[in-house]
């Protein structure tokens, strides 16, 4: 096994600027073989940029990269791959029209003796890798037909099926539920024990403390320090990241839930992904929805948001809303934040301002003519309020860091002032400091009388915010809990087995 003290890769004095932004400023970092190195920091602090410099996507403006002690210029991704640097990027990079099997082997399809593509082996080996990961998906399915969670698992399958020496996971767990995250971390540890170096970027503290032995913290593109884990206490790490203490993380609200804002009766989809589901949410109440990947919780959100056709009745504020398309959801006062930011939420080649204003077209126009001045003011307010870090409001949203994009998406929905918010993985990719801010804003909406359906794979978030929790399993609700005194194990047990712990025991 490799000597664990010699760094596999050594970055020295790396700087990188984009128009209007200094993304990295004199960052130096070592990643050793057989070590899981965590890279953390606020949204836009330069984590992904650093990862992209290592994997050949970006060239540094200054600084050197040494691999095994040899100065190396990684000019393109194929160079990085040849060096054994494999990355899972924050934004999914799958070929949507191709099959799962082929995506796993992009650029390195198995060959037959005659040098032709060996389809049998491709499918067989893909199946084996998927089985290993315990992902039950047909390798022949087109990737575009998969949910975001499954797509993320395909990326992971691809990354770990290569013989990596350095594995870069840029928020690879952000679209995964706890169970899937667990499996991923097991695999990461397995790889680590085989001598693979891992650079893990994540906003989820428990993961860092579970698997990483060292954490480097970035703030505004500068390295704030590299500290050992798990020795460094969480609050110290957070302080390093955000420069202050986070008290009252989830926030609180002081309202008594009043009239029923959302009443759902026998809501289901025709394909069976969501079985008939009924529940109520009152004004001033947050309903948490937990469940594994594919348990139907995402479909619940989509059905409420009008993104997919459904049957059953939905009442908003006492009035029945026939939601057959998203427009009706919007009109009846439901604000839906989908879980797939890139695919369903942002307008990649439009500006931050326009992405913000997307939700306001109706209110900000008279006779179809926009009030642009007012819009500009509101956008600037919104960016400040939701802590969006960008050179200015006119840059393309695709140049923003993932977390900042998410803040735009959340911000524009909150700003609409809906009766009901249906939030699917709302804090995906948002840093701890900003999360706390988002929670405060969410609490504010609820305090003002909104009802929230919070669909999340992060149990702490659900337990910290929700009043009640629905747990989905195989398309239907298998348990409803009062959040008071609820613990993660209880919820997880239902999510996995469909039965409460006591019955299982």
């Amino acid at each position, binding site marked *: 096994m490799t000597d664990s003290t010699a760094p596999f890769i050594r970055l020295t004095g790396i700087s990188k600027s984009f128009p209007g932004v200094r993304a990295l400023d004199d960052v130096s970092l070592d990643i050793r073989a057989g070590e899981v190195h965590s890279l953390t920091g606020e949204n836009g602090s330069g984590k992904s940029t650093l990862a992209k410099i290592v994997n050949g996507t*970006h060239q*540094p403006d*200054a600084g050197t990269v040494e691999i095994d002690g040899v100065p190396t210029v990684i000019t393109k991704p194929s160079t990085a791959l040849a060096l054994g640097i494999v990355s899972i990027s924050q934004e999914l990079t799958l070929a949507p029209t191709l099959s799962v099997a082929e995506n796993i082997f992009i650029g390195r399809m198995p060959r037959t003796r005659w040098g032709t593509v060996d389809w049998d082996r491709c499918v067989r080996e893909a199946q084996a890798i998927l089985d290993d990961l315990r992902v039950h998906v047909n390798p022949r399915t087109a990737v575009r037909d998969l949910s975001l969670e499954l797509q993320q698992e395909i990326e992971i399958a691809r990354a770990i099926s290569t013989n990596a020496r350095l594995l870069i996971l840029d928020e690879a767990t952000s679209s995964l539920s706890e169970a899937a995250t667990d499996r991923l971390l097991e695999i990461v540890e397995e790889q680590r024990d085989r001598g693979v170096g891992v650079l893990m970027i994540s906003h989820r503290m428990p993961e860092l403390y579970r698997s990483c032995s060292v954490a480097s913290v970035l703030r505004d593109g500068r390295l704030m320090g590299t500290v050992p884990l798990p020795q460094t206490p969480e609050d110290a790490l957070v302080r390093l990241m955000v420069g202050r203490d986070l008290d009252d993380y989830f926030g609180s609200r002081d309202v008594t839930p009043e009239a029923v804002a959302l009443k759902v009766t026998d809501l289901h989809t025709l394909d069976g992904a969501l079985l008939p589901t009924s529940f109520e949410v009152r004004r001033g109440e947050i309903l948490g929805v937990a469940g594994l990947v594919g348990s139907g919780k995402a479909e619940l959100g989509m059905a409420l948001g009008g993104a997919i056709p459904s049957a059953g009745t939905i009442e908003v504020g006492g009035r029945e809303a026939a939601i057959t398309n998203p427009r009706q959801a919007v009109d009846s006062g439901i604000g839906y934040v989908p879980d797939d930011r890139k695919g369903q*939420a942002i307008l990649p*080649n439009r500006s931050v301002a326009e992405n913000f204003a*997307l939700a306001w077209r109706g209110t900000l126009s008279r006779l179809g003519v926009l009030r642009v001045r007012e819009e500009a003011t509101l956008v600037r307010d919104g960016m400040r309020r939701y802590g969006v870090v960008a050179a200015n409001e006119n840059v393309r949203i695709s140049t923003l860091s993932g977390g900042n994009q998410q803040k735009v998406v959340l911000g524009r929905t909150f700003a609409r002032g809906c009766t009901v918010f249906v939030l699917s993985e709302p804090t995906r990719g948002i840093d701890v400091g900003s999360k706390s801010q988002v929670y405060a804003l969410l609490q504010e909406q609820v305090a003002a009388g909104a009802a929230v359906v919070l669909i999340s794979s992060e149990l702490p978030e659900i337990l910290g915010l929700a009043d009640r929790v629905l747990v989905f399993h195989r398309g239907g609700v298998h348990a409803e809990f009062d959040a008071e005194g609820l613990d993660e194990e209880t919820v997880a047990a239902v999510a996995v087995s469909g039965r409460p712990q006591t019955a299982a025991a």
Partner: protein
Amino acid sequence: MTLLDSDPTLSAETPPADAAPARRRPRLSLGRFTGVVVALLAVCVYLALTQPVFLSWGNITNIVASNSVILLLALGATFVIIGGGFDLSSASALSATGMVLGLALQAGMPAWVAIASPILAGLVIGLVQGVLISYVKISMIVVTLGFMSILASFALIVNKGATISVYGAPGFDPVYQFVNGTVGPVPVLMIFDAVVLLAAAFVLRYTAFGRSLFAMGSNPEAARLNGINTAMMVLFVFLIAGLAAGLAGLVSVGRLTGAAAASDPTLLMTAIAAVLIGGTAFTGGEGGVLGTMIGVLFLGVIQNGMTLSEIPAFWQGTVNGAILILAVGIGVLRDRGIRLRRRAITTRVG
């Protein structure tokens, strides 16, 4: 000028200095048009020097008049392409609406009915295509390809392939005056073009519809989830394309003093080329009518210059293509097809 630029975010001036500590390449405020505009200016300067007549008012109005039909079709295409779509039927729609005007004039309709007829015909064409795409849910390519055939065929059928001569028709004079008349030294058509351009720019930039169009072109699913009725939007877009074709039909008949059953086979391509040269990308969600106007002018000026310079017909394609590749290509235009984004290769320190 700023009003015409429908995409302020992309042509934005350099950001405040404090935000750009490491900015290297200062950008001209022309933004994505720099290449075309520089090329256009170069061609203009060359022509002004070699062909004294080039800068005469008569030649300038001539260029504008000659390219109005293309401008109208290109504006229609700009809307469709920004919305993420593609319309193959526009040149045929021009022939069809022209023939409708021809028939109306031949039948002795009063001028206002005649003038309304191609516009109405264009709207109907757009409506039918929009409904087939949005509500019957037939592929846009198939519908517009089918209508390309059907409308061209319609234009041939109605007068057995012959041009309808409308010069002597009672209702023709207002049409003629509209297309060939002047207000002082300024052609009516030039004013009309300017008004249409401004209106199109206004719609794209300052209306909810325009916003929704960019949104739909950029990410149809995100647009839909935010309550934009994308089916309706597509219908509207095709109404606009139909309206543009109808107006183009009107101008074309007025200019030729006749409704031609067959249209210039290069028209569709020229209109689409102008849109693309103007920086509106096939991938949707970006671009604008200022770019399209520049694209139309670019092609129109080169054509005019080649005729004035009496470049032999066989060589014109070479000159045209070479100018396009050399001048525009090396400029700012970015590819939308297979995009190989350029990573700045900057010198490293230490």
